[in-house]
């Protein structure tokens, strides 16, 4: 497997870094090489937030993702900014509750699901990011469901372990969307 470059982007507070961490831990569970790099600084406080994750069988070169194979977009500015950068043949996952997918690109695949609305309707407040991850593992073969569950168990801190079943539920919702 060549390196899979993933970019997650949205507003601060949507769980962008958390979702990125789950992907990173999935890589760790599967014994892959990986890197996780957050944007840091004032843009995190209320503004846009993004996170680069690289998964590979070989050591990672630059951890900064500029041309993603997989883009996970959670707000309109992020979608508009990064959809142009997606590598040809790449896949874009986005929350269609918040994003109008306006792009003329035909060389990439778009997967929009109303993840925010699904989270609200299923009592999974703040689970939109995880629902999108469910869609990602359904439409790509990057990680198995089993790996994803192990990744979630690693990232959710022990003091919040009661939230693990909700995260599993969110993954399944995304997989069936």
């Amino acid at each position, binding site marked *: 497997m060549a390196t899979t470059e993933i970019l997650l982007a949205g507003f601060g507070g949507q769980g962008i870094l958390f979702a990125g*961490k789950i992907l*990173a*831990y999935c890589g*760790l569970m599967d*014994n892959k*090489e*990986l*890197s*996780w*790099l*957050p944007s*840091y*600084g004032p843009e995190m406080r209320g503004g846009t937030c993004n996170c680069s994750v690289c998964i590979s069988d070989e*050591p*990672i*070169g*630059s*951890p*900064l993702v*500029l041309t993603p194979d997989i883009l996970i977009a959670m707000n309109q500015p992020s979608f508009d900014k990064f959809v142009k950068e997606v590598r040809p043949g790449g896949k874009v996952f986005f929350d269609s509750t918040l994003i109008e997918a306006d792009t003329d690109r035909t060389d990439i695949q778009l997967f929009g699901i109303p993840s925010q609305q699904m989270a609200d309707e299923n009592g999974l407040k703040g689970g939109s990011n995880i629902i999108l991850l469910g869609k990602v593992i359904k439409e790509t073969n990057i990680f198995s469901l089993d790996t994803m569950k192990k990744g979630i168990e690693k990232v959710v801190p022990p003091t919040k372990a009661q939230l693990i079943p909700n995260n599993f539920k969110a993954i399944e919702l995304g997989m069936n969307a």
Partner: protein
Amino acid sequence: MERKLMKGNEALAEAAIRAGCKCFFGYPITPQTELAAYMAKRMHKSGGVFLQAESEIAAINMVLGAASTGVRAMTSSSSPGISLKSEGVSYIAGSDLPAVIINVERGGPGLGGIQPSQADYWQATKALGHGDFQLIVYAPASVQEMVDCVVKAFDRADKYRMPAMILADGLLGQMMEPVEFPEINPDAYDKSGWAANGHKFKREHHIINSLYLQPDELEKSILDRYKKYEIIKKTETDAELYLTEDADIVICAFGATARVAKSAVNSARELGIKAGLFRPKTLWPFPVKEINEAAKNAKCLLSVEMSMGQMIDDIKLAINCSKPVHFFGRTGGVIPTPVEVLEEIKKLGGAD
């Protein structure tokens, strides 16, 4: 060994604790703060001291005090904070004390920015303070290497009784990578001949001092120190040579930039351009022997840095200006991309 996922800043802190660091003094600054936060959480559990000083200047002088007693002591900061520490670093060097100083660089000059930079190369390798002195400077390029460098820095600082620096940057500090912590059994160096740790009326006072009013005495202390530096230059250099054996063009880069450069070298090879990478892991002493080995068949060299080109002079001196040394860099917190570096390689190496 268990592979853990850790931020570079946290791994630096954990490695220091495992290497027997007993005193950490610091002051928060982005993009280094996670290091101090980790120390605040963990240091007391391992029987050490974490203290947030009132300023960077206070922190480095606390390191001076702690190191005087013979314990392993450390401070960390980012570029503007390191400038503040420079007086204390000079005193530590002038007092022949071991200490570890970590710089998770950000853009400068002045308050600059908070994004990654390598523009403190000159400061770290030429003049982190006034007077004739050097620090051993390590330049890790991954979270794992950050761990290994910390362990080595504490060891060499004790061995040579001098300050050692880890020169990292915001990218390495903020990124998470898998990391393994080896079993660390730090060598115990005998400090009983100089440490000011209480004479209990059983021996003479040990005096930690950097003041010599007689020029010939001061000169002698410096000459002795430079004899030590000559040994370090012969024994402590370290570098990675990647695909340099048949390389027409050798890219020179350290730290995070070396990762970008390596991606570009791989892309160049796919295009049939014979590119290689020379990556110094020690910036002082500069790996002179290693770069000459890396560049032996090269037509030219290209230094890639997150600065305006602070390593070029060392490269030219090391190869005695025997080949052209070109430069490509981004500065002010901008990270060069593999595509940009590849374009430079094509310009230099792809033409003939």
